[in-house]
């Protein structure tokens, strides 16, 4: 696949502050790429440079093979943008803004199904500034896709959304991907990235610190507490202080078990898979051990966020 976004050694400064310092990343056409990192990591600056808003930068940025500044007139017809903050006149209704924006494009989407899909079809005459944060986010998302772009930049599309709205947004992003739209989004949440993204780029202090598919990232980087782990590791929570020696005796030969931190367990075996899982759960059943949060292979939820913290540091930047 060809790259829809190609950034090589990007540097952006705001006065004395170096917001992006030698960042390299790319995003494949037709795929969902998530740019992850803490606040202030340089995600928005990177995205806005690709959107053509930042003119003074060093390095190379190509969007759909074009220069984001010099070819801006062409790219603004082919690329959809959802800004992290603002962008919509506060007094206008969602319907007015959507109708107006759709009118700027040659082949806009039908507004009815789009609004219905995002749950913003019954906002009536409420001005945009009086909508809830989640409703505003979804209106902004609709504005980014209404012109049927080849590529969309979504800067924190699910920030402040309740679970229903977040699911609707995820569904829309998946549908964009299915239909061949390249999606580049930023997020704070590793879980969101693993749910949606084909490719994850983790950014910290203006640099790319890790990149790959969610599974590759998990396989390549050790998990919380230095406990290690592979694509077939089993993780679970149980009361702290289990007798690991007794557990190991019940597991297939060559298996390893560790507890770190207290109450979080990691079990690995040379074969892994169902046999290891059956032996583990059998031992727990025999000994009346209550287990929770069991996962195999790619870790879910909490542990993924731990991976992100490990890669980008734990202190707020």
């Amino acid at each position, binding site marked *: 696949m060809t790259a829809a976004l190609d950034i090589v050694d990007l540097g952006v400064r705001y006065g004395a502050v170096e917001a992006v310092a030698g960042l390299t990343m790319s995003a494949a056409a037709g795929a969902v790429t998530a740019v992850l990192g803490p606040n202030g990591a340089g995600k928005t600056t990177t995205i806005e440079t690709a959107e053509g808003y930042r003119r003074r930068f060093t390095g190379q940025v190509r969007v759909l093979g074009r220069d984001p500044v010099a070819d801006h007139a062409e790219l603004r017809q082919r690329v959809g943008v959802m800004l992290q903050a603002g962008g919509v*006149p506060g007094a206008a209704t969602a319907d007015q803004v959507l109708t107006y924006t759709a*009118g700027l494009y040659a082949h806009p989407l039908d507004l009815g199904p789009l609004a219905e899909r995002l749950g913003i079809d019954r906002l009536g005459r409420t001005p945009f500034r009086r909508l809830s944060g989640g409703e505003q986010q979804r209106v902004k998302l609709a504005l980014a896709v209404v*012109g049927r772009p*080849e590529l969309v930049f979504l800067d924190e599309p699910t920030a402040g959304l309740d679970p229903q709205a977040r699911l609707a947004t995820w569904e829309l992003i998946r549908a964009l991907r299915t239909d061949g739209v390249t999606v580049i989004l930023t997020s704070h949440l590793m879980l969101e990235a693993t749910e949606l993204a084909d490719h994850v780029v983790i950014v910290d202090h203006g640099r790319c610190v890790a990149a790959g598919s969610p599974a590759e990232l998990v396989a390549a980087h050790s998990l919380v507490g230095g406990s290690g782990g592979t694509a077939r590791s089993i993780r679970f929570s149980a009361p702290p202080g289990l007798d690991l020696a007794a557990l190991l005796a019940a597991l297939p030969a060559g298996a390893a078990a560790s507890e770190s931190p207290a109450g979080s367990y990691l079990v690995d075996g040379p074969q892994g898979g169902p046999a290891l899982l059956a032996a583990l759960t059998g031992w727990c059943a025999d000994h009346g051990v209550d287990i929770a949060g069991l996962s195999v292979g790619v870790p879910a939820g909490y542990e993924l966020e731990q991976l992100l913290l490990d890669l980008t540091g734990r202190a707020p930047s």
Partner: protein
Amino acid sequence: MTVATGTFAPAPGGAPARRLVLRHARFELVQLVRNGEQLLLTVIIPTLLLVLFSRVDVVDLGTGSRVAFLAPGILALAIMSTAFTAQAIATGFERRYGVLKRLGSTPLPRWGLLAGKSLAVLVVECGQVVLLGLFAVLLGWRPSAANWSGALFAAAVILVGTAAFSGLALLMAGTLRAEATLAGANLVYLLLLLGGGIVIPVDKFGTGMSSALQWLPSTALSDGLRAAASGDLRWASLAILAAWAGAALAAAARWFRWE
């Protein structure tokens, strides 16, 4: 909830330039009509001032018909309120809320945005001219030499005046914070209303002061319209407005910041 594959299949492209400008002008007009404060500024205050000052002897307007002095002045005020005050405030907040920034990633180019805004301003001004002209005639205004050259000259004065005030509005909105623009635009509106020959003849301020005040764009606009109403083509007013337009638009082009 499933949507047939292909709904979002890319089909990029912007609307034709003419449609972009018309769409934007229409959007601006809808926003203006929905905005109570802007309507107050552009329609209600000028109408009230026209009726009040021509019926009540608040200010000594000298001899002659009060409405003959006031009608062109109030028309100038209405133009100023639309092209300057309302536009500065609206644009200032659009900039503050990232509206201009987001439009920068749509097919609407900057010239299209400005053309759309100007078109909306001109449509509102046409409405103001009709409404205030009607009220003035009802109040007894009879432009003494209403002829084609006077009307054309008045139209030219309004156009160039609109360019001057739009330039000042964009200069203010593009360089100051939105709150400062809000306060500043209202203050300038009030100062030009009082000192710009709109409801108070500038010669009331004494010779020294009045010769300075006549260089103000509001004075030039109201003087030019007043002269045109009596069939007099006052080129000096047009020249002053053209100078303001050139300077203000050049400064706005130089210093306007989009975000």
